[in-house]
Structures are given as structure tokens and as C-alpha cells.
């Protein structure tokens, strides 16, 4: 494959406990691109995010995932992160007792070490944090707390994007980052994501609703249904989906979940 490809998924089949969830996904992402994956509940969106990030408990039964020239599926989650893959969690985890700043500094330095960069000391890290935190309009005091503990729902989501800003991933996978956000918070988050876009990185935005894509404008939209990408197109596809519902997509109407979700 070309080194200019960031992610290349081919015929990926994956499941949990013997139940097939992804049933043959193929997707290629190049530098500078923003891809959106849309789909109803149960279509496999979060499973795709989980498999890409390396969450335990999923069985890959077929297919390949190449990431920047490497076999992604061979890597541990931490190796993927150090190689520049970032997952913004749908449900960011609270970690009592682990200080946010300490955690993020440890993470950044692991990633820097892997890239052959010197570790940042406390002062350098503080400067970086101050610069990046403005982007997300987050209160700096939140970083004195334990990871995600006592954060509101919106703060948790903004904190994910703040971490993304600090860690500067090559590929960011945003798993329903819009869920639970009001319109103002959504705008802040989307604005942050947009500012992090560069010609040499890429974003994979997973969402149920078209709403987020008003703010994060994708180059490509893929519709996931029952574990398959049933349609791909430009940004207009998202608008069409919004207007017509998921059951409009061919091959998807058979799934009652899709019909129910397409409201």
C-alpha cells in the first residue's frame, strides 16, 4: 500500500461472543481527509471504533486493517496510540485518584518517546496545556481534578478533544462525540476538531445524527448498516440521510433496528 494512506480497512469482519457485528467493512482514509460514518443504533459504528482502538473482547474473523504501513490489528492499544491513533470515547471513563494533568503528561511523554522526541518537563507541559485548553474553552482548574471525575457530560466530551489537541494524533476516531451535547457545546467541540485538522492527519467521525456534520464538514460520508457500508458519498449524503431517514438506504430497510432508528 502507499505510504500516503493513513488507514486502509479491507473486508473487516468482527464480532463479540460469536455474534457477527461487522460483516465486511472496507474503507480507505488518506491524509487531510475527514470521513464520517453514519448509521442507526446497532449498525456497528461503535464496534468499528472499538476494533480500531484495540478494545478487548472483540474477535476479528476476517479482513485486514493497515495503519500507516503497519498491521494495526497486531498492535496493543497503547502501541496504536503511540503510533498516532486516537479514540475520542463515546463515554469517557472516570478514573478517581488519577490526576488529569499527571495522566495526560504521562500519555504525551509515552507518545513522544515512541516518536523519538524528548519528554516534556512540567513547565513545558504546562505551556502546551495552556495553549491547547483555550481551543476547547475548558476551565484549567478541571485539570487539577482526577480524570473526568466531577466533569459534566459536556466537559467530558470537550476533555476528549482537548486530549486530542495535546496528543496530536495522525488519525482521530471520534465515537459519537456529539451525543449528549447541547448546541453550544457541540459548536465548541466541532470548532476544536476543525482547528486540529491538518494536511497530514485525518479524522474519522462516527455519529448517529447529521447535526454534527453541520459543523465538522466531511469529505466523505459512509452509511453503516448491519455491519456493512451500504452507501458512500460526499457531504451531501448526510443531508440526504437527514431528509429521508436510514430506511431509504438500500439493503438496510430489511433491518427493523434501522427502520426504528431512522426518525
Amino acid at each position, binding site marked *: 500500500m502507499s505510504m500516503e494512506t493513513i488507514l486502509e480497512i479491507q473486508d473487516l469482519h468482527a464480532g463479540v461472543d460469536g455474534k457477527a457485528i461487522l460483516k465486511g467493512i472496507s474503507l480507505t482514509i488518506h491524509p487531510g481527509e475527514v470521513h464520517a460514518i453514519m448509521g442507526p443504533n446497532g449498525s456497528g459504528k461503535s464496534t468499528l471504533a472499538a476494533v480500531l*482502538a*484495540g*478494545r*478487548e473482547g472483540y474477535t476479528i474473523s476476517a479482513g485486514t486493517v493497515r495503519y500507516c504501513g503497519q498491521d494495526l490489528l497486531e498492535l*496493543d*492499544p*497503547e502501541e*496504536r*496510540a*503511540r503510533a498516532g491513533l*486516537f*479514540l475520542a*470515547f463515546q463515554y*469517557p*471513563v472516570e*478514573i*478517581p*485518584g*488519577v490526576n488529569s494533568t499527571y*495522566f*495526560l503528561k*504521562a*500519555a*504525551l511523554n*509515552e*507518545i513522544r518517546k*515512541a516518536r523519538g522526541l524528548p519528554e516534556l518537563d512540567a513547565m513545558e507541559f504546562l505551556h502546551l496545556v495552556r495553549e491547547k485548553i483555550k481551543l476547547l474553552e475548558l476551565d484549567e482548574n478541571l485539570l487539577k481534578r*482526577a*480524570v473526568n471525575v466531577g466533569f459534566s457530560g459536556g466537559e467530558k466530551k470537550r476533555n476528549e478533544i482537548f*486530549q486530542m489537541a495535546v*496528543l496530536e494524533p495522525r488519525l482521530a476516531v471520534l465515537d459519537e462525540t456529539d451525543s449528549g451535547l447541547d448546541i453550544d457545546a457541540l459548536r465548541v467541540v466541532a470548532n476544536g476538531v476543525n482547528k486540529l485538522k491538518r494536511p497530514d492527519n485525518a479524522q474519522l467521525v462516527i455519529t448517529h445524527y447529521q447535526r454534527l456534520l453541520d459543523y465538522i464538514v466531511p469529505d466523505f460520508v459512509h452509511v453503516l448498516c448491519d455491519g456493512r457500508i451500504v452507501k458512500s458519498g460526499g457531504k451531501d449524503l448526510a443531508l440526504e440521510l437527514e431528509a429521508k431517514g436510514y430506511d431509504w438506504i438500500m439493503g438496510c430497510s430489511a433491518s427493523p433496528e434501522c427502520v426504528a432508528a431512522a426518525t
Partner: protein
Amino acid sequence: MLSTTLAPQPTQPVTTPAPADLPLRAVFEQLQRTRTEPAWLRAARRKALEHFEQTGYPTLRDEDWRFTSVAPVAALPFRPASTSFASQFSAAALARLPFHGLEGDRLVFVDGHFVPELSQIAHRTDGVVVTSLATALAHQPEDLEPHLVRHARADDNAFAALNQAFFTDGAFIRVPAGRVVAAPIRLVFLASGREPDVTICLRNLVLVEAGAQATVLEHSTSLDGATHVTNCVTELVTGDRAVVEHLKFQDDNARAFHVAGFHARIGRSVKLLAHSFALGARLARFHVRAGLHGEGAEAVLNGLYLANRERLADHHMIVDHARPQCASHEYYNGILSDRARGVFHGRILVQPGAQKTDAKQTNKNLLLSDEATVDTKPQLEIYADDVKCTHGATVGQLHPEQIFYLRARGIPEEMARQMLIHAFAGEIIDRVRCAPVREELDRLIWDRLEQQEHLGLGAHD
């Protein structure tokens, strides 16, 4: 346990042969003949012995000892530690102990006997007394009589009775009304291991009078790996509005038996912060008794126990709300690996009339292996109607979702586990108010977690 370099040099011949093992009563009578103590104490000792003779050691049939068998202690001969090794330790050896760099007074006891040469007591003119109990008994028994052996009662448990009958020495601390002792007063209890299977009985009395403030750190450890029984009882008496921080750091060797008591009489508007850090011993049992005897008092009882291999760490708590408008908060976390066992028994008693009581108890346990176990037993007895009492216990493993979150940010799995375990211990360590002690504890406990392979990962030689 410390490295053996701390132990006396083998060139020192052991001249006293191990005494023939005598029945308990004979040992007692022999000691009693040599003692020159006030009559009230002699009588109290005899009463305690008689009490023990009646009850004997507890068994698993005893409700308070259901999960903790002291049969291995009962099987040992009762052999009080002699004084013959106390003076063989150098100050340099002492410098290798944790907390050594701390400012403040230090009383050092080897095998239950006070060693003035290793101790360090500031000269004072403000009436604050820091000395050995034996010295205080010799010179100011009238100060001790109203308190000593009155708060840790011989009928509390068999080991308290034994302690009362046999204690050799300990610390006497008195902080007069309004005085503030800023630096922590450190009590160091060393087991030399020079005689096999000895029993070391220590008794401390701490008086913090009205409006006075003090921090006391008890540090118990072994100088080598020999079996010993350490039975250490502390009585704390507080005047109105006193502020006290008490820390017990138990780090005996993995063959030792450590049975201890902390008995606090808590006066009006007193703030007590009492910590237990139980890191050592094959069997560790700590009786914590907090009696809230004045209105508006607050007690925070905070503890962390770490156990690996076949070891057992047991905390037996009784919080007695005797007066209204008192608050007690118990926070105990346990980290257990291998086949270790944790026991937490937390009794909260709210007496009739103790209205507006605010009592909270939390016991959380982290099991790092499938074979580690914990028995946690809350027990609430409430005889007042306008009270707030809560209790909660959890037993669980490291949260896989938390580990994944950390790994997904580039943090290696082992470091992620370490961070989470450290955080669990840190909840307790963070409640220590005395900053230099807290920082040292943090280092020590973290080192220990790594050394003892509590993490359940790597580090296997």
C-alpha cells in the same frame, strides 16, 4: 522488614540462654516480683491476667474473631522479650529506617524496651512531656493514674488483657492545654529478632489537653525475619477542642504477628484524624476504638491495608457515638493479592440521646488475584432517631474500562495498572494532613506495592 544489615553484628555473643518456657502465670509472677510500680497498676495487671486466664485466646467461634484464627499465636510459648539486645543498635542503623529525616521528637524501643541513646527528645520549657512510660511511672505516676489502663480495657479483647498484664514500656506524651506541637512525635518500635518467638508488649499513653494539638506517628517494624508477636496498645485521651493526628504504620516482617489497639477518648469539639497503614506481618489485627464522649467531636478513621502471599490483615473497629452532634467518618481501603485475606469489621454504636450523629463508613477492597479474599462486616446499632448513618463496602478488581482508557492514550498496560492501584491507595494516603509524613508514606507504599508484586504483573525473578 528491613535488611539484615540493621541487625546487631553477630560478633556480639548472645550470652543469655533462651529461658525455659514457663506457664503464663509463672512468667507473670516472676515479672511482678521485679517490678516497682504503683500499687494501682500492679493490681490492674493482676486483674488483667486473671481476665485472660478466664477467657484464654479467642477462637473462630467467637463472633469478633470469626475470620481470624489466632491459633498460631496461641501455639507459641509466651516468652517476654528480654532487654539484653536493646543497646546494640547504632544510630547509623536507625538512619536507614523510613521517616528518619523527619523533624521532631523520636522515642525508640527495641523489643519493647526504651533505648534513650537512639531517641531524640527536645528540651522543653512549655510543659510538653515526651518520655517513656516507665520513666513517667517512676517520676509522675499521679499524672498517669487517671488514664493508664482506663481506656483500653482488659475486657475489650484477650490481647488487650495480655498487654495490660505484660507491657514493658511505651511512650508517655502529654501536651498541656493550648500547646501546639507542630512536628510529628515519632514512636519507633523495633523487634530485634535476636531471641526466637518473643512477645513484645508495648503500651502508650497520649494526653492532648484542651485546645492542644499534636501529631503522633507509631512505626512498628522488624530488624530481621524472625517470628515475633508484637502487642501494642495506645490510649489517647483528648481534652475539649484538641486537634490530634495519629498514624500507625505497621511494617513487621512476614512471619510476625502484630496485634494492636488504638483506644481514643474523644472530648467535646475535638478533631481526631487517626490513620492505620498495615503493610506487614503474617497476621495483623488492629482494634480501633473511637469513643465520642463530647458534643461536636469529629473523628476521621482512615486506613490502608496491603497483604500478599498467605498474609492476613484485620481491622476491628468500634465507633461509639455516646454524645450528640458528633461525626465519624471511616475510610478503609485494602489491596490484596496472591492468597492474602483482608478482614474489616466496622461497628458503629449510636447511644440513646446521641442525636444528630453523622456516621459514615466505607470499606473498599481491591483483589489482585482470584485467590485473595476479604470478609467485610458492617454492624450498625442505633438507639437514637435523628441520625445519619451510612455504610458501604465494595470488593472488586481493577476496572478493565479504566485500564483500556489509559492504554488508549498510549500508557502501557503495566503502568496503567500501577496508576490505578496507586490511585486506590492514594485516596487514603491523601487524607494524611502532616505533609512530610504523607510524602514519605506515599513513597514507601508505592515502593512496597511494586516490591511485593501486588501488581500481579512481571517482576518475577
